[in-house]
C-alpha cells in the first residue's frame, strides 16, 4: 500500500517536474529564437502596369471568370465580399449591353443607331477615362505614383491598393518609396522619412479618390463632347459606307429581287384589284377591263407612277406602253371568242342587237328606209337556213360569221362600218364559247402577273429602293447627307456671329435681312466678292459634277443595263415582250468586244466570214464569252425611267445651290450699278427706287411658285412686274458702251468664276424663274394675274425647278447652327471648368497634418523636435 502511495506520489511529482521542465525548455527556446521568429512573408504583390492590348485580354478573361464564379456562387451559396462586388460590375455590363442593343433596334437610321452604341461606349469610356485621365494620370505626373495601382492579395484576388484608406497593404519596395520621396521632395534626413512618404501617398490617394467621387458625375459632359465631335466623323463615314453599300447592292440586285419574290407579302398591286381582273365570275372583259389589266401588268406603273416621278412625259410614255399591252390582250381575247362554226343563236336576240346597234331600219319591215346590207343579208340567211324549234327561231352562228365576213369589206360608210362591227361583237357575246374565252383571259392575266410582272416588279422595286437609298430625299440618303454638309459649308463662308444667328433663325424676314446684308457687304468689295463667289461656285460645280452627274449618272447606266437583262426572261408571245423588244444590243460595242476577245480587227473578221457577220452570231458569241453580257445592252425606256429618276432627285438640290449663287450675284449687280443702268434702260430713265429693290429682294430671297401672286403682284407693283422680271432674270441684247456683257447678264466676277456647264445651268434656273413667273402675268391686262395660267404644281415640282427659298434655307440652317452653338456655349465652359478644377486642385494634394512631428535624425528620434 505504502509502496503504492509512494509510487503514486512519486509519479505525481515526476509528472509535475517533467511539466515544469517542458515549460522551461519552451521558454528557453522562445528566448533563444525570439529574434529570429518573424511573420510569414507577405504573399501579396503589386500588379505591373500592362499595355492596352493585354489589359483588354485580361479584362475579358476576368469577366469570363466572374461569370463562372457567379454560377458557383448561385449554386453553392459560397463566395466572398470581394467577389460579390465584382458581380455588381458584371450586372452593370450586362444591363448596359441590354440597353444599348435595345435602343439600337429603336433607331430608324443607321447613323442614329450607330450613335447609340458610340454614345453608350463613350459613356463607359468617359466613366473609365475620367478618373484615369483627369485624376490618376496628373497625380502620377505630379507625385510619381499611381493611386489606381492594383495588387493581388494572398488569396489571389485583384484589388486596388488605395481602395480602403484604413487598410493599405505595405507592398511598395524601399526603392520605389525612395523614388516617390524624391518626387515629393521629402528630406531624407527626416527620421522615418519612408513612413512619412507612405503617409503622404495615402493622403494623396485618399484625396484623389474623394475628388473622383465628387467629379465623376460630370463625365457625361465629356461623353457628349466626344459624341458631338464623333457625329461629324460618323456622318462622313456613313455617307461613304452607304455609297459603297449601294454599289455593292447593285451587283446583287438579281439576288435581292429573288429574295423579294419569295416574300409572299410582296405584291405590287392590291390583292382585291387583282381578284377583280382574274376571277372569271367578276371579270367583264371590255376596253376598261383591258386597260386596267395592262396597267396592272406593266411593272413600271405600280412602282414608279405614283411614288417617284412627276415627269408627265414619262408617265405618258408609260401609259402608251400600257395601251399597247392592253391592245394585245384585247386582240387575243377577241380572236379566241370569234365564231368557230359551232352552236346556234336565237333569232330574236339577233334582231334585238341589230335594232340596238344599227337602227330602226331593222324593224321597219315596210322597207321605207334603206336597210343596212348587213341586216338584210342576215335576214336572207335566216330565210335560207333558219329553223324553228318549240316556237323559238334559231340561226346557226356559222352563217352570221359568213355574212359578216362577206359584208364588212364592202361597207364604205365609216359610221355604218363601226355600227356593224359593234353589232357583230355583241352578237359574238351570245356565243357559248365567250365564257371560255373569259376564263382564258383571266388565267392568262394571272399567269403573266405571277410569272412575269411580279418578278420584274420585284426587280424594279429593288432598283427603286436602291436609287432611293442614294438619291432619295430621306434623311439617310447619300444625296441628302452631301447636300446638308454642303449647305453647312455654304453658311460657313458667311462668317456669321452668334448674335446674327440668333436673329436670323426667328423668321424668314429677319433671315432675309441678315443674309442680304451679309451678301451686300461682301459684294461691295471686289476682292471679297471674287473670293466668295469663286468659293461657292467651285463648291457647287464640284457637287454637281462629281456627286450628281458622275456618281448618279454612272449608276443610272449600270442600272438600266441590269434591268434590260431582266426582260430576257419574258417569253416572246407575252404582251410584256414589248419591253424585251425595246432592249437592244449596242452592236458597235458588241463588235468591239468580239474583235478584242478574238484579238483580231473587225475587218479581219468580216473577211474571214466572207461578208458582214450576222448580228445573231455576234450576240451569241457575246453571251457565251462576256462576263457581263447585259452591259452591252440598253433599253431606251429604261434609260428614260432611270434618267428621270436621277434628275428629279437632284434637280431641287441643284436649284437651291443655283439660287444662292444668283442671290449673291444680285447683290453684286446692285453694287456695281449695272442693275440701275439696266432699269433705266428698261423704263426709259426711271430711278431704281428702294421700293423696286425691295420687290427684287423679295423675289430673289423669298419667292416660291405659289406665293407669287399674293406677294409680289398685288402690292401695287403689278405694272412694273414684267420689267422687274426682265431686270432680274432676262439678259438683254443691248451691250452698253465700255461694258463686256449685255445688260441683264450675270456680273463679271460671277460668270468668270463659273465653268461652262455651271453657267449654262445658272441660265436655265434664271429662265425657269422668268418663265414660271412670267406665265402668270396677264399680258392683255397689265398689272393683273392670269388666273388660268396659275400653275398648281406639287411642292416637289416647285422645289425641283426653283429650289428652296434663300430666306427659308438660311433661317433653317441658322437655326441649326444656333442650336449647336447655344448648347456648346452652355456645356463647353462647364465641362472645361470642371476638368480644369479637377486637375488644378491636385496641385494642393499631399499635405500631411502633423508633418512637423516627424523629427530630424540628428535630433535623435521620433517626436524630438516638437
Amino acid at each position, binding site marked *: 500500500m505504502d509502496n503504492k502511495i509512494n509510487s503514486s506520489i512519486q509519479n505525481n511529482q515526476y509528472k509535475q517536474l517533467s511539466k515544469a521542465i517542458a515549460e522551461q525548455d519552451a521558454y528557453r527556446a522562445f528566448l533563444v529564437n525570439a529574434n529570429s521568429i518573424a511573420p510569414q512573408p507577405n504573399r501579396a504583390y503589386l500588379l505591373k502596369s500592362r499595355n492596352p492590348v493585354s489589359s483588354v485580354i485580361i479584362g475579358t478573361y476576368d469577366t469570363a471568370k466572374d461569370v463562372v464564379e457567379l454560377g458557383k456562387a*448561385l449554386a453553392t451559396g459560397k463566395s466572398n*465580399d470581394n467577389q460579390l462586388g465584382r458581380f455588381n460590375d458584371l450586372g452593370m455590363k450586362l444591363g448596359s449591353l*441590354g440597353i444599348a442593343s435595345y435602343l439600337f433596334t429603336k433607331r430608324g437610321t443607321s447613323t442614329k443607331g450607330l450613335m447609340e452604341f458610340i454614345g453608350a461606349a463613350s459613356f463607359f469610356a468617359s466613366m473609365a477615362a475620367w478618373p484615369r485621365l483627369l485624376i490618376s494620370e496628373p497625380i502620377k505626373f505630379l507625385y510619381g505614383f499611381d493611386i489606381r495601382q492594383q495588387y493581388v492579395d494572398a488569396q489571389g484576388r485583384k484589388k486596388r491598393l488605395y481602395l480602403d484608406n484604413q487598410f493599405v497593404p505595405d507592398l511598395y519596395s524601399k526603392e520605389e518609396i525612395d523614388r516617390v520621396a524624391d518626387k515629393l521632395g521629402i528630406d531624407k534626413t527626416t527620421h522615418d522619412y519612408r513612413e512619412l512618404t507612405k503617409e503622404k501617398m495615402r493622403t494623396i490617394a485618399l484625396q484623389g479618390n474623394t475628388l473622383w*467621387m465628387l467629379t465623376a458625375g460630370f463625365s457625361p459632359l465629356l461623353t457628349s463632347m466626344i459624341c458631338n465631335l464623333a457625329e461629324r466623323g460618323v456622318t462622313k463615314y456613313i455617307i461613304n459606307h452607304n455609297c459603297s453599300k449601294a454599289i455593292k447592292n447593285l451587283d446583287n440586285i438579281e439576288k435581292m429581287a429573288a429574295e423579294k419574290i419569295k416574300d409572299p407579302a410582296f405584291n405590287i398591286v392590291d390583292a382585291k384589284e387583282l381578284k377583280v381582273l382574274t376571277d372569271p365570275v367578276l371579270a367583264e372583259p371590255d376596253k376598261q377591263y383591258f386597260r386596267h389589266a395592262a396597267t396592272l401588268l406593266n411593272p413600271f406603273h405600280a412602282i414608279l407612277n405614283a411614288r417617284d416621278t412627276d415627269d408627265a412625259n414619262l408617265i405618258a410614255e408609260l401609259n402608251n406602253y400600257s395601251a399597247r399591252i392592253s391592245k394585245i390582250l384585247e386582240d387575243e381575247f377577241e380572236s379566241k371568242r370569234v365564231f368557230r362554226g359551232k352552236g346556234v343563236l336565237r333569232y330574236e336576240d339577233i334582231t334585238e342587237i341589230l335594232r340596238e346597234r344599227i337602227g330602226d331600219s331593222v324593224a321597219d319591215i315596210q322597207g321605207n328606209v334603206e336597210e343596212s346590207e348587213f341586216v338584210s343579208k342576215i335576214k336572207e340567211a335566216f330565210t335560207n337556213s333558219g329553223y324553228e324549234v318549240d316556237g323559238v327561231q334559231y340561226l346557226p352562228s356559222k352563217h352570221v360569221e359568213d355574212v359578216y365576213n362577206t359584208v364588212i369589206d364592202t361597207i364604205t360608210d365609216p359610221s355604218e362600218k363601226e355600227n356593224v362591227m359593234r353589232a357583230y361583237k355583241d352578237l359574238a357575246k351570245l356565243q357559248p364559247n365567250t365564257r371560255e374565252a373569259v376564263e382564258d383571259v383571266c388565267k392568262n392575266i394571272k399567269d403573266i402577273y405571277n410569272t412575269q410582272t411580279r418578278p420584274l416588279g420585284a426587280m424594279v422595286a429593288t432598283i427603286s429602293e436602291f436609287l432611293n437609298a442614294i438619291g432619295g430625299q430621306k434623311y439617310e440618303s447619300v444625296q441628302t447627307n452631301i447636300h446638308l454638309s454642303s449647305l453647312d459649308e455654304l453658311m460657313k463662308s458667311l462668317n456669321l456671329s452668334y448674335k446674327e444667328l440668333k436673329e436670323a433663325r426667328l423668321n424668314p424676314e429677319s433671315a432675309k435681312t441678315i443674309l442680304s446684308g451679309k451678301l451686300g457687304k461682301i459684294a461691295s468689295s471686289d476682292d471679297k466678292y471674287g473670293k466668295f463667289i469663286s468659293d461657292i461656285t467651285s463648291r457647287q460645280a464640284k457637287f454637281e459634277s462629281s456627286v450628281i452627274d458622275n456618281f448618279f449618272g454612272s449608276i443610272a447606266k449600270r442600272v438600266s443595263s441590269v434591268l434590260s437583262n431582266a426582260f430576257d426572261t419574258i417569253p416572246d408571245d407575252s404582251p410584256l415582250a414589248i419591253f424585251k423588244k425595246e432592249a437592244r444590243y449596242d452592236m458597235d460595242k458588241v463588235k468591239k468586244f468580239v474583235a478584242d476577245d478574238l484579238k483580231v480587227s473587225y475587218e479581219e473578221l468580216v473577211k474571214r466570214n466572207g461578208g458582214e457577220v450576222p448580228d445573231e452570231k455576234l450576240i451569241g458569241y457575246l453571251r457565251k464569252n462576256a462576263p457581263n453580257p447585259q452591259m452591252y445592252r440598253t433599253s431606251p425606256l429604261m434609260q428614260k425611267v432611270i434618267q428621270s429618276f436621277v434628275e428629279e432627285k437632284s434637280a431641287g438640290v441643284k436649284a437651291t445651290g443655283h439660287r444662292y449663287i444668283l442671290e449673291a450675284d444680285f447683290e453684286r449687280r446692285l453694287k456695281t450699278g449695272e442693275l440701275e443702268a439696266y432699269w433705266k434702260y428698261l423704263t426709259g430713265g426711271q430711278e431704281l427706287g428702294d421700293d423696286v429693290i425691295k420687290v427684287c429682294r423679295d423675289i430673289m430671297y423669298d419667292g416660291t411658285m405659289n406665293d407669287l401672286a399674293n406677294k409680289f403682284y398685288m402690292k401695287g407693283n403689278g405694272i412694273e412686274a414684267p420689267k422687274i422680271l426682265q431686270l432680274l432674270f432676262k439678259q438683254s441684247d443691248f451691250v452698253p458702251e465700255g461694258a463686256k456683257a449685255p445688260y441683264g447678264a450675270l456680273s463679271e466676277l460671277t460668270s468668270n468664276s463659273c465653268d461652262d456647264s455651271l453657267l449654262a445651268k445658272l441660265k436655265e434656273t434664271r429662265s425657269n424663274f422668268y418663265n414660271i413667273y412670267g406665265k402668270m402675268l396677264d399680258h392683255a391686262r397689265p398689272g393683273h394675274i392670269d388666273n388660268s395660267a396659275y400653275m398648281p404644281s406639287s411642292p416637289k415640282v416647285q422645289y425641283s425647278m426653283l429650289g428652296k427659298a434663300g430666306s427659308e434655307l438660311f433661317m433653317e440652317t441658322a437655326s441649326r447652327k444656333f442650336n449647336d452653338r447655344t448648347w456648346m456655349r452652355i456645356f463647353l465652359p462647364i465641362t472645361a471648368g470642371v476638368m480644369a478644377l479637377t486637375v488644378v486642385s491636385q496641385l494642393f494634394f499631399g499635405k500631411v497634418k502633423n508633418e512637423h512631428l516627424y523629427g530630424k535624425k540628428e535630433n535623435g528620434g521620433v517626436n524630438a523636435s516638437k
Partner: protein
Amino acid sequence: MQTGQIKLVNMPQNSYYASDEAHKKLSSTSDRIIKKTPLTGARIVADKLVNSVFTYAPKGMQGSRNSNFYEFLSMGLIPNITGSAALIALFNLANSKFRNPDRAYAAIPGRKMAYGVVFYALGKWLGSKFINKGVEYKTGVDLEMPYKKVVTELPEYKGDRDLTRVEYHRVFESADFPRFDLINKMGEQKGNRFLWWDKIARKMGFKTRLNSPDQTIQDKVREIIVKATSAKYISSYIWAALGVALAAQEPFEKPIIFPVCGTKRERLIGLGKNFATTLKDSFLDLYNGNPGKYMYASKILGRTLIFGALASTVLGVFNATRGFRIADNQPDTQIDIDREYEVH
C-alpha cells in the same frame, strides 16, 4: 435535484453580467440594430447624402486618417446624383433657347432621357427590393435589416473631443462577416438571446425550439446572403435596363398631361391616370416591338427584357431560398420524451 430546463428568464440579461443601467448606457454608445419603419431606408440615404457632402468629402479632401471605406462608398451617391442631373441637363437645358419647332423636337429626346434616368434608378431599386422582399417572405431573413454603428475616431487635432461618429450599415451586408452578434444582442434586450433565431427556425420548419438555433442556422443565412446578393446584382440591372427601354417608347415622347379642370385631388388623380396610360402603352409597345427596320429584333429584345427581369427575380428568390426548410428533410425522432420507459 431540480429537473427540467433552466428557465431562460433566470439567465442574466446579457452575457457580461452588467447591470441594466450599465447595459442601457453601453448600448447607446455601441453598435445596435435599429427599429425599421417604412421611412428608415430613406432617412438613412438622406443621412448618408448629407454627410457625404458636408463631412465625408471635406474629410477625404483633407486626407484624414479617419476616412474609411464606408465613407468612400457613401460618397458614391454624389456621382449618381450629379451624373443623372448632368444627363438630364445635357438634353434639356439648352432647349428653351431654341425656336419653336426645334424646341418641340429637342424636347422629345430630352423627355426620354429624363424618364430614362429616373426609370433606370427606379428599376434598379425595384429589382433588388423584389428579391429582398421575396427572400424575407420565404425565410424571414431581412437582408436590409439596418444597424447603427458607432465608430470611434482618432483625434483630428489636439484636444479633439468629438471622437464618435455614427454609420448606418446592414446586418447582412457582408457575406464574410454578418453581424450575428448584434442579432444576439437584440434578443438579449428582449430577454431571449435566441429570439430571432427561433423565428427563423420556425420558418425552417422546426416545430420545437432548438437548443442552439444559431449554430444550425448561421451557415444557412450565409448561404442566403451570397445567393441573394449575387442574384440581386444581376437582376437589378436587368430591371434598370427594362426601365430605360420603357422610357424609350413612343408614348413617353409626349408630355404627360396634368388636367387643368377639377379640384386639386381630381387633377392629381387625372395625372396619375394619364401616367398609368402612358406606362401601359409603352409596355405594350415594348412587348409588341417597334415598327421599322428592326421590328423583329426589337420585339425579341423587348420581350427578353420583360421576361428576363421577371425570371431573374423569380429564379433569384427561388435559388436563394432553395433547401431552406431543412427540417422537412430531417428524420422524425424515434424517442418520445413524454413516455416513461421502464428499465428492467
